[in-house]
C-alpha cells in the first residue's frame, strides 16, 4: 500500500510547491531578515524536491537529500539553481555588503543545526538503516489497536509553528485492501514523529483532496480531526465512523521551519520518467541520468567499450559469454566482446615474450583505429576500448588509469566493482557519462594534456585567502561539533575526519588530504563530472555520500607483508571510510571520514550523518560568507599570477612590463600603486579590529579556555596592528590581520562555553527569542557570535576583493615583454597540476590561440612521454638496469623544447597575419621529488627553465 502510494506520488507534478517556496520562511526569520538572506539560505533549505536517479523518496528541506539515500547508504543528490533565481555571485556580494543579513543568516545556520536537523531526523523514514532501527515500520504501527495514550503529544507543544485549521472533503476512493484509513479517507500518507505517536503528514495520495489543499504540507503535525486529538494509535478509530463525502475539520500545526514537500519515488532504476521536483538543469540531467536509451539509440556512435573478464574456471564447452563478468555497452554492440579471446591470449603471451604484461593494443575496427588498454587484477582483466579519434594512445591509457583509480576508490577492487550486480546501474551511469564527456572531445583538434593527469588542477589563491580556506577546513576537520546537538553530547564520535579539500569551479583551492587521496578524490569528481558540472553551473545544493576505499589506507585491504616493514610502527587501522561531498554554488567541499579506532564502528550501510553534512555545509557557507567564491572568481578570471597572455593579435603582445622598472617579478606585488590604496583600508581595519578584540575579551571572560584563546588572538592582532601601522602592508598582506580571529573555531569554542555555563540571563537578553526552550540556548549565543564576527567577515571579503583588483601580475619569463601563452606544472607527488584556468580558453575565440594551445598540448604530451624514460630509469634498481630494454640515450634527458611557427603554410599571404614563433618547452626536475614544468611562450628573450620553475613555485605559494 505504501508502495502504491509512493509510485503514484511520482507522477504528481509539484509546480505549486516550487512557486511557493520563496515566501516560505521560518517565521522567526521573517521578522528580521530581508530577501537577500533568504536567497543565500535557499541554497540548502529551499524546498524544491523531487526525484533523481538515485533516490527513493524525499521529504523536503534538508530531507531533500536525506530521503534519497539508497539502501547501500549511498547518496547522489544534486539540485540546480532555478534559472530565475539571480546568479550565485550577486547574492554572495549582497551578503558581503549587508552585515545584518549575515548576522541573520548566521543565526539561521545555527538554528538549522538544532531544530531542523532534529526534525529531519524525526521525519526521516527509510533513509538509512540506522533510522530504520530507531522506529518501527509504519504499517505495523497503523494496524495496531489504539492502546497508547496521547500523553506525549504535548511534549513538543512549545515548538514553533502556526496552527492551521483545514476543512477537507472526505474522499470515497476505495484504495484497496492495503491502504490505511488515513490514506483512503484523508488522502494523507501518515507517518510519525520520533516519539512514535504524533502523526506527521508524510505524503499525499495522488489527486487526493488533501494534496490539492495548499494549507496541508508535508511535515505538518496532524493534531486533531473534528476537534478530536489524534495519534497514530487513535487515528483509525477516529476515522472509521466518518462517511465519504462528508466534510471534516483537520487541525494541523506547522513544525518545520520551511515547507516540506515529499515526493516518494519508488526505486533507483525505473524513475527516469518521473516528474522533476528538484530542479535539475539539462546539464545535470544529461550527466547523471541513466543513459541506457542513449546507448541503444546511438549504438554505433558509442565506441567506448568496457569488458571485465576472468580467466579462471573456463571450460571448453562453456556458454558464449563465459568468463565475461561485466560488459558495457551490452554484448551485442560491444566491439571488445567478440575479440576478448585475443586479448586474453596476448595478455598471457607477452609476459613470456617481454617479461612485462601488455599495456595497450591497437586494432583497426570498422575502419577506425581503436586503442584497448589492459588493466589486470590478479586472474582478472579489465579491457577498455577507446577510438583513436577521441583519444590518442597515451591519453587513452591515462584515461583508463583514471577510471580504474576512480573505480577502486569507489569499490575497493575491480573484482568487487564488476562482480557485484548491484553496482551495475551506477557503473552504467558512470560509463555513459564518461562517454558523453569523451564524445564532445576530439583528439585531433583538442588535446587534453594537462586535464588527463592523475592530479587536481590547483589554483593558488593569495596567502591570506589560503589561510582562510585552511582555517575553515582545519576547523571542520577538528570534528569538534559534538556539542551541537545533545544527542551526540558526550557520546563517542561517529567518524574521524581524514581530511578535506575545497574545490571552486573544479579548481582545487585548498586540500588537507593525503596526496594519494586527493588524487583519488579528484579522479572521482572528474569522472563523475562533478568538476565540470560546478565549472559550468551554480548548484543550489549537492550532497554526495558513499563508502570509499582511500589509497592512503591501502584501499582497506590488508597490507601485504612487504609493505609492513618493521620500521613502520604505525599500523593502518582496519576500518571503513566514507566520502562526503557537499556543494553549493560553484563550490565543492570533499571530506573523507574514517570509521575506525576511536570512533563508533560503522555497521551495515550507514547513510550520511546529518551533523557531518550540516557541518560541511556550514563550512562551505562560511567560505561563501567571507566572499571567497567571489574572490576566487575574480582571481580566476584575472589570472595574473603568473600572468598569461592570449596571442589575439601578435602585435598586441603588449609592453605590459615596460611600466615597471622593477625587475623582480616576485616583488611586483609591493609596487607603489598598491600602497596608497591600502593605507586607507588598513587604518579603518585596525579600528574595527580593536573593537572586535575588546568584544572578544569581554565575552570570553567567563570561561578559562576561551579567555586564553581570545587573549591569544588579541595578542596576535596587536602584532598585526602594529606591523600595519609601522609599515604599510603589501597588497597580499591586506587580509592577514583578520585571519587569526576568524575561523569557525572561535565561534565553536564560544558556543561550547556558552552552553556549558547555560546562563539564563544571557538568553533572556535576546528580544526575539520568545520561548525559553532549552534547545535554543546554545544557538542564540552562537548567533550573537556570528553577528559580531560578521563585521570582520565583511571586511575580509572587501580586502580580499580589493586585493584582486590591485594585484600586480607576476611574470614567469625573463625579458621586457610578457610572452607567456600557457604553463603547466605537473607534480604527481603532491597530486597537483598548476596551469592557467580554462575559462580563458572558452572565452577566447581566437583561432590562433586555439592552434597554439593545441600544438602545445600535443607536443607537451610527447615531451612528457620522453621525460618519462628518465623518471622510469631513475627508479630502476642497479641490477635491473642491465636487464631493462630502455634506450640508454634517453635515460638522462631533463629538458626538451620545440620551436614552432604558425600559419606560414597558407598561401594567402595577405590575409594571414605574420607567423608567430613560439616555444614549447618541458623540463623535468628530479629533486626533491619529480616535477615537470611545461611552458609555451612566444619567442623573444632566451629563457631559463630553472628560473621559470622558481618563479612558478613562488607564485604558487601564494
Amino acid at each position: 500500500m505504501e508502495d502504491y502510494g509512493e509510485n503514484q506520488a511520482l507522477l504528481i507534478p509539484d509546480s505549486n510547491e516550487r512557486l511557493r517556496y520563496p515566501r516560505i520562511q521560518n517565521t522567526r526569520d521573517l521578522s528580521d531578515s530581508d530577501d537577500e538572506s533568504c536567497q543565500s539560505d535557499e541554497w540548502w533549505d529551499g524546498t524544491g524536491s523531487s526525484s533523481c536517479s538515485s533516490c527513493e523518496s524525499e521529504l523536503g528541506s534538508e530531507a531533500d537529500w536525506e530521503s534519497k539515500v539508497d539502501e547501500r547508504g549511498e547518496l547522489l543528490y544534486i539540485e540546480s539553481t532555478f534559472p530565475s533565481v539571480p546568479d550565485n555571485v550577486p547574492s554572495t556580494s549582497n551578503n558581503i555588503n549587508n552585515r545584518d543579513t549575515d548576522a541573520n543568516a548566521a543565526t539561521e545556520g545555527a538554528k538549522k543545526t538544532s531544530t531542523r536537523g532534529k526534525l529531519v531526523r524525526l521525519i526521516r523514514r527509510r533513509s538509512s538503516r540506522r533510522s530504520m532501527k530507531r522506529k518501527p515500520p509504519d504499517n505495523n504501527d497503523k494496524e495496531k489497536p489504539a492502546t497508547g495514550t496521547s500523553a506525549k503529544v504535548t511534549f513538543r507543544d512549545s515548538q514553533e509553528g502556526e496552527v492551521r485549521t483545514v476543512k477537507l472533503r472526505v474522499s470515497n476512493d476505495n484504495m484497496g485492501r492495503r491502504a490505511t484509513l488515513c490514506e483512503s479517507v484523508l488522502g494523507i500518507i501518515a507517518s510519525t514523529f520520533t516519539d512514535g505517536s504524533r502523526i506527521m503528514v508524510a505524503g499525499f495520495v495522488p489527486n487526493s483532496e488533501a494534496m490539492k489543499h495548499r494549507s496541508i504540507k508535508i511535515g505538518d503535525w496532524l493534531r486533531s480531526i473534528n476537534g478530536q486529538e489524534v495519534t497514530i494509535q487513535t487515528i483509525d478509530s477516529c476515522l472509521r465512523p466518518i462517511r465519504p463525502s462528508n466534510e471534516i475539520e483537520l487541525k494541523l500545526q506547522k513544525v518545520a521551519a520551511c515547507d516540506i514537500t515529499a515526493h516518494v519515488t519508488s526505486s533507483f532504476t525505473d524513475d527516469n520518467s518521473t516528474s522533476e521536483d528538484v530542479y535539475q538543469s539539462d546539464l545535470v540531467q544529461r550527466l547523471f541520468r541513466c543513459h541506457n536509451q542513449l546507448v541503444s539509440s546511438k549504438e554505433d556512435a558509442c565506441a567506448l567499450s568496457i569488458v571485465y573478464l576472468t580467466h579462471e574456471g573456463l571450460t571448453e564447452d562453456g556458454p558464449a559469454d563465459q568468463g565475461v563478468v561485466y560488459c558495457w555497452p551490452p554484448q551485442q554492440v560491444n566491439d571488445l566482446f567478440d575479440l576478448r579471446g585475443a586479448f586474453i591470449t596476448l595478455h598471457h603471451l607477452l609476459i613470456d615474450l617481454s617479461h612485462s604484461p601488455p599495456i595497450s593494443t591497437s586494432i583497426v575496427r570498422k575502419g577506425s583505429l581503436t586503442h584497448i588498454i589492459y588493466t589486470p587484477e590478479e586472474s582478472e582483466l579489465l579491457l577498455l576500448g577507446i577510438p583513436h579519434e577521441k583519444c590518442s594512445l597515451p591519453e587513452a591509457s591515462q584515461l583508463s588509469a583514471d577510471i580504474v583509480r576512480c573505480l577502486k576508490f569507489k569499490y575497493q577492487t575491480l573484482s568487487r566493482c564488476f562482480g557485484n550486480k548491484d553496482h551495475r546501474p551506477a557503473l552504467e551511469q558512470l560509463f555513459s557519462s564518461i562517454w558523453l564527456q569523451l564524445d564532445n572531445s576530439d583528439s585531433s583538434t583538442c588535446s587534453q594534456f594537462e586535464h588527463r593527469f592523475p592530479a587536481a588542477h590547483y589554483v593558488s589563491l593569495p596567502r591570506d585567502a589560503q589561510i582562510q580556506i585552511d582555517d575553515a577546513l582545519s576547523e571542520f576537520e577538528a570534528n569538534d561539533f559534538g556539542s551541537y546537538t545533545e544527542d551526540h553530547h558526550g557520546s563517542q564520535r561517529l567518524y574521524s575526519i581524514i581530511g578535506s579539500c575545497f574545490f571552486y569551479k573544479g579548481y582545487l583551492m585548498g586540500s588537507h588530504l593525503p596526496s594519494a587521496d586527493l588524487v583519488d578524490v579528484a579522479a572521482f569528481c572528474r569522472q563523475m563530472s562533478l568538476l565540470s558540472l560546478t565549472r559550468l553551473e551554480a548548484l543550489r545544493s549537492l550532497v554526495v555520500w558513499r563508502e570509499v576505499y582511500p589509497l592512503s589506507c591501502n584501499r582497506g585491504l590488508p597490507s601485504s607483508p612487504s609493505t609492513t616493514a618493521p620500521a613502520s610502527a604505525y599500523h593502518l587501522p582496519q576500518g571503513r571510510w566514507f566520502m562526503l561531498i557537499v556543494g553549493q554554488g560553484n563550490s565543492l567541499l570533499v571530506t573523507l571520514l574514517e570509521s575506525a579506532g576511536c570512533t563508533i564502528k560503522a555497521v551495515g550501510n550507514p547513510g550520511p550523518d546529518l551533523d557531518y553534512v550540516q557541518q560541511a555545509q556550514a563550512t562551505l557557507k562560511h567560505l561563501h560568507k567571507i566572499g571567497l567564491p567571489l574572490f576566487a572568481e575574480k582571481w580566476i578570471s584575472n589570472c595574473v599570477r603568473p600572468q598569461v597572455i592570449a596571442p589575439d593579435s601578435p602585435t598586441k603582445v603588449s609592453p605590459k612590463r615596460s611600466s615597471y622598472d622593477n625587475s623582480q617579478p616576485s616583488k611586483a606585488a609591493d609596487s607603489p600603486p598598491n600602497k596608497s590604496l591600502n593605507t586607507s583600508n588598513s587604518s579603518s581595519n585596525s579600528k574595527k579590529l580593536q573593537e572586535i578584540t575588546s568584544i572578544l575579551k569581554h565575552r570570553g571572560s567567563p570561561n578559562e579556555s576561551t579567555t586564553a584563546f581570545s587573549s591569544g588572538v588579541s595578542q596576535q592582532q596587536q602584532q598585526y596592528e602594529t606591523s600595519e601601522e609601522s609599515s604599510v602592508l603589501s597588497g597580499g598582506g591586506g587580509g592577514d590581520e583578520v585571519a587569526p580571529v576568524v575561523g569557525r573555531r572561535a565561534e565553536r569554542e564560544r558556543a561550547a562555553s556558552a552552553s556549558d555555563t547555560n546562563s539564563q540571563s544571557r538568553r533572556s537578553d535576546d528580544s526575539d527569542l520568545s520561548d525559553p526552550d532549552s534547545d535554543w540556548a546554545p544557538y542564540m549565543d552562537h548567533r550573537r557570535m556570528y553577528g559580531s564576527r560578521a563585521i570582520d567577515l565583511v571586511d575580509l571579503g572587501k580586502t580580499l576583493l580589493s586585493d584582486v583588483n590591485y594585484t600586480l601580475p607576476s611574470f614567469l619569463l625573463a625579458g621586457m615583454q610578457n610572452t607567456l601563452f600557457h604553463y603547466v606544472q605537473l607534480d604527481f607527488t603532491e597530486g597537483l597540476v598548476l596551469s592557467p584556468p580554462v575559462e580563458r580558453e572558452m572565452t577566447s575565440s581566437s583561432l590562433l590561440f586555439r592552434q597554439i594551445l593545441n600544438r602545445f598540448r600535443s607536443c607537451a604530451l610527447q615531451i612528457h612521454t620522453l621525460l618519462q624514460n628518465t623518471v622510469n630509469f631513475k627508479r630502476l634498481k642497479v641490477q635491473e638496469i642491465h636487464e631493462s630494454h630502455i634506450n640508454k640515450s634517453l635515460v638522462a634527458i631533463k629538458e626538451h623544447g620545440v620551436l614552432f611557427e604558425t600559419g606560414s603554410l597558407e598561401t594567402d599571404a595577405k590575409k594571414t597575419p605574420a607567423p608567430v614563433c613560439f616555444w614549447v618547452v618541458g623540463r623535468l626536475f628530479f629533486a626533491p621529488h619529480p616535477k615537470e614544468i611545461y611552458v609555451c611562450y612566444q619567442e623573444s628573450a632566451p629563457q631559463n627553465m630553472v628560473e621559470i620553475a622558481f618563479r612558478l613555485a613562488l607564485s604558487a605559494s601564494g
Partner: protein
Amino acid sequence: MGVHVMALTLSGGLPLFSRQIGNSQPLPFSLIASLNGVHMFCNSQQSGLRSTCTQDSTVVWKDYEDSITLIVAASTTSEAALSELMNCIFNTIVLTVGLEEVRGLQTRNIERLKRELRSCFPLMDKILDAVDLGDRNVVPTDFMSMVETVICSDSLSLKNCLGVFAECVESLFACLMLNSCIVVATGGWWELMPEERKLLALLVDSSSTDCTSIDVPVFLPCKSPTVPFRLVAVCLISGVWVAALCGPSPALSAVEQFCAKVWRPAIDLVRSVQSAPRFLPQGLQQNHHCIIGLLLVQCTLQKYILNRSQSANRKEAGDVLRTFYHQAASLLVPPKNNAASSDTRGLETYWCSEYHKLHALYEKDNLLCVLYTSALPNSTMRLVTRQTLQTLLSDKQLCW
C-alpha cells in the same frame, strides 16, 4: 630482447623465416604460432590487429599483399620505427624474389620461396642493425631509410668518371660507394626511391664480403617490382665499389673491363676516398670546440652525413644522434602526404641531457642535428647550429 622479425603466410600461417638480433634466444615456434594465431583470429572478426605495447617493448603485426604476415617484436616503444622496419623487410623480400612471387604465394611452392629468401638474410640483418635500440653494441650507426654519404674533397672529378662508366654500361643508374656509403652517384641513382637506394647500397655492402664483383638480379620494390634489373658491382679497391643497374647486357666480364678502363686513371682519387676522414670540416672544428658530432639530413633525398669531432667516441655520438633524430628531430619534418593538414610547423628542437645537449634545426629541407657538450648555454647552442648549417651548405667542396 633485441628485435625479432617473423614472416608467415597469411592464409596458412606457415613460417617463411625468422630473424633476430640482440642478445636473446630465437623465439620458440609455439610463441610465434600463438602471435600469428591471435592475428588470424582478429582478422576473422573483421578487426585488424595492429600493435601491442608493454612497458618497454612492442609487437607489431602487418599484412602485405594479402599473402604475407610480418610480425615484429622489439624492445622499443616506438611503433612507428617498427612499422618502418617492416616495410623495409618487405621491400627486401620484393627486391629478392619479386612482387609476383609474393602475390602468388598460395599457388607456388613455399619451400622454394623459403630457399630464395635465405639469400637475403645478410641484407635483413643489416637492416635490423639500423633499428634504434640504444644498446650501443652495433658498430656503425645506420638509419633505416636514409643512405649515408661521404664528403670527399674532389667529388667533381669522381662524378665525371662515374658518368663515363655509366655510359659504357648503358645505364642511368650508377654510383660509387664506400662501405655502403654513397660517394658520388648519377642523377638517375638519386631519382630512385630512397628505400630502393638504401636497399641497393646495403645489398652491395652485404654481398661484398668475399668477392670482387657482383652480378645479381634485383626487383626495385617501388619502380619495378615485377621486372628484374641486373645489379652489377665491381670492387675498385678494398671497400670502394662501383655499382650500376643495367639490362641484360653487357656481361659482367665486359663491365669489369670498362671499370679498369675508366677508373685506372683516377685511382689516386679513389684512394683518397678510401681514406676520407669522417670528421668535422676543418673550419668548423676550429671554431666550435663544443660540437661533439653532427648529423645533416637532406629530407627529400633521404641522405645524411654523420660526422664527429676527432676526440669523440664515434659509437656513442652516433647512437645519441640517431636516437635524437628518431625521437625528436624527425618530427620537425612535415609528413610528405598531408602537408596541408598541419597549421603549425616545427622549426627547431632541443634536448638537454645530463651529459650533453642536442639541437636540431630544420630549414629548407635540410635538417641539422648537432651534439654539444652539456656546458653550452641554450641560446649559444642555437646560434652555433645556425652558423654550422650555413657553413655546411655554402661549402663548395662538400657539394651537398
